[in-house]
């Protein structure tokens, strides 16, 4: 928000400013929506950085193996919160739109800097919600790599949000503390001091809107958020599955009742995955490299675990997996259970053709080289002959069509 005397500037601009006749373009509406957006973007940023750390852990950070369902919750919260923020952001930008016409554009260097910082805030916030939603719909009307663009744009946006919160925190607190609202038309807002001391309101500001209308307005925006969440969240909150008419996934739909992100055909592994000469190689820093056929793997002691596949795109689904604990496989090769392991797929290319298990994840008994799903051999789209599945991992790190474990 920024100010400017309503009388200043070109006449057409002043005339345009008078067209904003709704009393809802005020500081109280802006304050309520601003707080809600601050919470929403805070949740999205924290869960987004968490997801980034899960996929690209820096040296100082050890991503935990437990609790098993944590990533499905953080990433579900990321997508649901971002979706819920869409009506909040659009409503907020509608409320403060009159300030766009403030004149002069900058009344001082500091004022200019404050307004300039609104561009990365507004553009960045819109871009994050737009690109996130498009990614969930698998729509990529751009050439950049979505996760990286979304990630760095988030830092830019959060930086601009910090500037904005710093500038507006006091006014927000002030606007919510007072029982009645006042209009925040450019330049028409009385100073907090005059409002607190009970001096007469600014003559330019019309009567405060009835609280009932703001309640109805904010209630309508909240209803739109709720409707969007119901319409989209069913891919991870399965009781909503039937109602979520705009969800990317439907619980239970997919081979063996589980959705698929990348098919075997798309990954170009149909032939090598079905090759009878398939061997799982365990190599690297091991006492004795081992190569195991599928029947060798099936002959080893099996373990069952119910673990979710939790996609970065927000959907998740639990399934019953059976296979050989990775730590048992390492023991066969004479490696200790607490090792860092690179898990490689038969996929000839692609960013997600391999993933890394940190020592804590390798040591977890439920980190499996799974051979079966729901009691049947894996469907080829779920990673036949063998796939990695472990607790608390992003779906893209649950590597499918595994043919090599390299101990580091």
């Amino acid at each position: 928000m920024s100010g400017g005397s309503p009388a200043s500037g070109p006449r057409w601009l002043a005339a345009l400013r008078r067209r904003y006749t709704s009393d809802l373009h005020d500081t109280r509406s802006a304050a309520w929506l601003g707080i809600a957006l601050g919470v929403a973007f805070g949740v999205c940023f924290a869960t987004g950085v968490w997801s980034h750390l899960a996929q690209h852990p820096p040296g100082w950070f050890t991503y935990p193996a437990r609790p098993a369902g944590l990533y499905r919750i953080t990433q579900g919260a990321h997508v649901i919160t971002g979706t819920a923020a869409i009506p909040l952001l659009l409503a907020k930008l509608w409320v403060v739109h009159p300030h766009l016409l403030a004149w002069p554009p900058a009344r001082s260097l500091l004022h200019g800097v404050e307004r300039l910082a609104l561009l990365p805030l507004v553009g960045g916030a819109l871009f994050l919600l737009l690109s996130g939603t498009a990614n969930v719909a698998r729509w990529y009307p751009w050439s950049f790599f979505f996760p990286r663009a979304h990630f760095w744009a988030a830092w830019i946006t959060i930086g601009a949000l910090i500037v904005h919160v710093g500038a507006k925190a006091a006014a927000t607190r002030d606007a919510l503390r007072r029982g009645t609202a006042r209009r925040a038309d450019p330049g028409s807002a009385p100073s907090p001091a005059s409002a607190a001391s009970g001096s007469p309101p600014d003559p330019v500001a019309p009567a405060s809107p009835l609280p009932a209308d703001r309640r109805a307005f904010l209630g309508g925006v909240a209803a739109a958020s709720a409707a969007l969440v119901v319409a989209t969240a069913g891919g991870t909150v399965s009781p909503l599955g039937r109602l979520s008419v705009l969800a990317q996934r439907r619980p239970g739909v997919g081979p063996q009742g589980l959705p698929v992100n990348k098919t075997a055909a798309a990954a170009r592994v149909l032939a090598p995955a079905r090759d009878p000469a398939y061997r799982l190689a365990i190599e690297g820093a091991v006492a004795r490299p081992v190569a195991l056929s599928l029947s060798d793997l099936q002959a080893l002691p099996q373990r069952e675990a119910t673990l979710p596949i939790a996609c970065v795109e927000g959907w998740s689904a639990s399934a019953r997996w059976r296979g050989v604990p990775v730590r048992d496989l390492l023991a066969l090769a004479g490696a200790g259970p607490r090792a860092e392991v690179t898990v490689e797929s038969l996929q000839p290319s692609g960013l997600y053709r391999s993933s890394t298990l940190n020592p804590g994840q390798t040591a977890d008994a439920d980190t499996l080289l799974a051979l079966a799903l729901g009691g049947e051999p894996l469907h080829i789209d779920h990673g036949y002959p063998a796939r990695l599945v472990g607790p608390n991992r992003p779906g893209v790190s649950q590597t499918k069509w595994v043919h090599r474990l390299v101990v580091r």
Partner: protein
Amino acid sequence: MTAGDGLPATTSRRGLLVGLAVGLPVIAFGVRGALVDGSRTHPGELARWIVGAAVVNDLVLVPVVLAAGWLGRRLVPGDLWPSVRAGLVTTGVLALVGWPFVRGYGADPRNPSLLPRSYGAGLAAAIAVVWVVVVALSLARRARERHRHDPPTHDRGVRGGSKGCH
């Protein structure tokens, strides 16, 4: 307004300075990251999307919403406007979010578990439910108003029919 600093009444000078001290390095970190990772972020195109999103919102989307609000307030009885407005907002965001699903931009014929629904029919059904709720709320409101204007025993006086509108 603090004299001389040119800041609006709703901006705290100290808060802004603290915000700049903390926020600018964060912005710089993001810009640097996007540039260093430029082969994947395509910084020029990313910047066009960020600026373009703000421009399209401010010059197209908000003016369209303002015009719809102006028109709606003239066409819809004042007491019903809040629920109709909520219905319009909900319809709008459902349509915006649903658009790429309905168009099926991301559909992959080799992966039937991806985008498995009839999104056009689903979106239409969702919007229909929204308007059933709007009509129900409007009828309930009118019934309440009638009850209020027609007190059975004593006259509570005339009250404005349109409460909390405009």
